[in-house]
């Protein structure tokens, strides 16, 4: 670093410190513009990684059938499908039965959410997720029961449940609550198994089974006196044909069952996860657009502050020119100040964003990833803001006539 540049940076710091409020507010603007962008990039990167892990763990043989049509052209509309039409809507027990007879389908399981309160030793849990399904669920999800056994359909008379790892911790304060019981809708259930941990990706359509309590589907029919509404049907292909062919067969069968109306969606697991990617991509685009506007505003703020600074220091510019500063040296001096303002904002924004992402990692299901590329990109962006919006005031300072400047009060 040249002596002049180092000196300019030191002088820029001195100038910034001498106007703390003004500089602080300008830096704050830059921070508020960059933090959302960097945070969303981190969240997005984390979701992508989760999606990749899920694809690898679940394989690409899994087919998901859901009520309602997924609008692939409008990613944000898919958010309504993301929370799931979990009350069933257009999928019924008959659809499930019909799919069992599709030749290219190996196994089929229905998934129904059963509302109710779980009580464990007088402690009530309103937000526990109770899912009704059938015995082939673990196989379809490529998951094992880590402790105990999964229930069998022929045991439908027994009130036995399988819990996810996090559900076990939540309800029973232990990881292996085999034999423990809980009350649900007036019935006593016994925990027969604990499911192996699944990699649930945020923003994906798959339910997080780590937090679920799974009970036999046929029990629920007895419990609520009717077929429970189905929010999702999972199926896998036999392998005789491609997965896409199996999807086509499923579509054909369901269309027939629904009287020719296509009010359902059939997707491979990979397509499912791509939708999550699309949603994330759209969110990132929107946030980036808003952040770009915020960055523009903060850049204009930097330009404004620098113009004020140049005017305040007109006499100083005259003195510097009188003692031999060239135009490029004056330009460099004020550019250094503008870039230092924006880079300081950028660095603080990186630290704040790291903090937010860490907080999200600890307190939510999101697993943001801080990547070197995103950090470097944001840093370079902050430098660019300083350069672009500092050039006009710096050029104005460099062009000042030294004699006129020396006369300035």
């Amino acid at each position: 670093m040249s002596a002049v540049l180092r000196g300019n940076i030191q002088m820029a710091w001195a100038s910034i410190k001498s106007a703390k409020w003004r500089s602080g507010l300008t830096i704050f603007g830059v921070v508020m513009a960059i933090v959302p962008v960097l945070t969303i990039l981190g969240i997005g990167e984390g979701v992508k990684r989760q999606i990749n892990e899920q694809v690898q763990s679940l394989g690409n043989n899994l087919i998901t059938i859901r009520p309602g049509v997924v609008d692939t052209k409008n990613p944000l509309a898919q958010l309504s499908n993301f929370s799931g039409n979990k009350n069933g809507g257009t999928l019924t027990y008959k659809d499930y039965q019909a799919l069992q007879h599709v030749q290219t389908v190996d196994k089929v399981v229905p998934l129904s959410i059963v509302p109710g309160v779980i009580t464990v030793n007088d402690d009530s849990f309103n937000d526990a997720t109770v899912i009704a399904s059938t015995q082939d669920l673990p196989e379809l999800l490529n998951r094992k029961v880590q402790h105990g056994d999964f229930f069998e359909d022929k045991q439908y008379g027994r009130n036995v449940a399988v819990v996810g790892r996090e559900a076990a911790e939540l309800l029973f304060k232990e990881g292996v609550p085999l034999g423990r019981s809980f009350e649900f809708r007036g019935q006593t259930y016994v925990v027969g198994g604990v499911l192996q941990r699944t990699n649930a990706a945020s923003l994906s359509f798959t339910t997080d089974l780590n937090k679920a309590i799974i009970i036999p589907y046929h029990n629920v029919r007895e419990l609520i006196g009717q077929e429970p509404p189905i929010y999702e049907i999972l199926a896998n292909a036999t392998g005789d044909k491609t997965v896409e062919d199996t999807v086509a067969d499923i579509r054909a069968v369901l269309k027939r069952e629904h009287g020719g109306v296509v009010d359902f969606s059939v997707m491979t697991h990979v397509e499912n996860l791509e939708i999550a990617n699309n949603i994330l991509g759209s969110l990132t685009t929107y946030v980036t657009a808003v952040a770009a506007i915020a960055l523009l505003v903060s850049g204009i703020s930097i330009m404004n502050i620098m113009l004020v600074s140049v005017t305040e220091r007109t006499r100083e510019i005259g003195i510097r020119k009188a003692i031999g500063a060239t135009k490029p040296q004056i330009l460099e001096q004020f550019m250094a100040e503008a870039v230092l303002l924006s880079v300081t904002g950028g660095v603080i924004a990186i630290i704040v964003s790291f903090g937010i992402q860490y907080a999200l990692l600890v307190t939510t299901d999101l697993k943001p990833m801080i990547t070197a590329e995103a950090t470097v990109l944001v840093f370079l962006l902050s430098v660019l803001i300083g350069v672009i919006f500092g050039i006009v005031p710096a050029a104005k300072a460099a062009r000042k006539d030294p004699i006129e400047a020396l006369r300035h009060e």
Partner: protein
Amino acid sequence: MAIIELREVTKLYGLGDAMTLALDEVDLSIEEGEFVGIMGPSGSGKSTLMNIIGMLDQPTHGTYKFNDRSVAKLRPMRRAKIRRDHIGFIFQSFNLLPRLTVLENVALPLEYKGVSTRRRIQRASDILERVGLRNREFFYPNQLSGGQAQCVAIARALVNNPKIIIADEPTGNLDSASSRLVMELLAEIHKSGNTVLMVTHNPELTRYATRVVYMHDGSIIHDEKTRLGEVAPLAKRVMYGVPKPSEEDDLAGVSVLMSAVPGADTVEEPVSKSKKTRAKKGKKAAKTRRRKVSS
């Protein structure tokens, strides 16, 4: 050899009816090692002359040669570098940068030259030692007295070993004790072989000069050699033979001191050699001087 050579240098400001003739075909040669005092009333063109010699401004007409090189052909960056390396400026109002320490102020021209931090701090410290202010290195300008601030300004002017020091009323804002301190410092600098140009209103300060140039209305009207330690002859005459100020003079804004200066008073002995200027002065002088002589 003349280090500074001006030939028929003219400076015009403004346009049309608002045009001002700040310098009127000035011829001036300054040899290396001279201490030249420049005197004249306000508006006589002293500062303009200093700005042009210091390359802060450019003449409208005429030629200026610095070290035998024409300045007109130099680009602004080159002029800035010459200012940095060969010319030291000292201003009436010191013009120190308030956010920098004394040491940083003095080292600033070296910073623009690209000297390393260690070397420029050392050099600045040595110069401050020379002006007797090393113990104030880390003070800020607002913590110094006027005399000290001007000494720091002198140190800054010297730090690059300039050929010429241009001092524009260096004692204008100082008390007599500080003024003496500053002038002794300038005298010492002159003794070391530097060339000094000093603008002043105070005839007493011509004691330090080897030559005094008198200006009036943009022209040099008198130029005399003087002995060190003595007030310049004309300045002495002006100082001790000061006519009483008249209301007319006050209204005309004429300096009482300059009223007695020969060139300012008479038409027969103009200093400018050009016929054009003589004709101009003839008309103007006839009107103005008749008023003064009567007082």
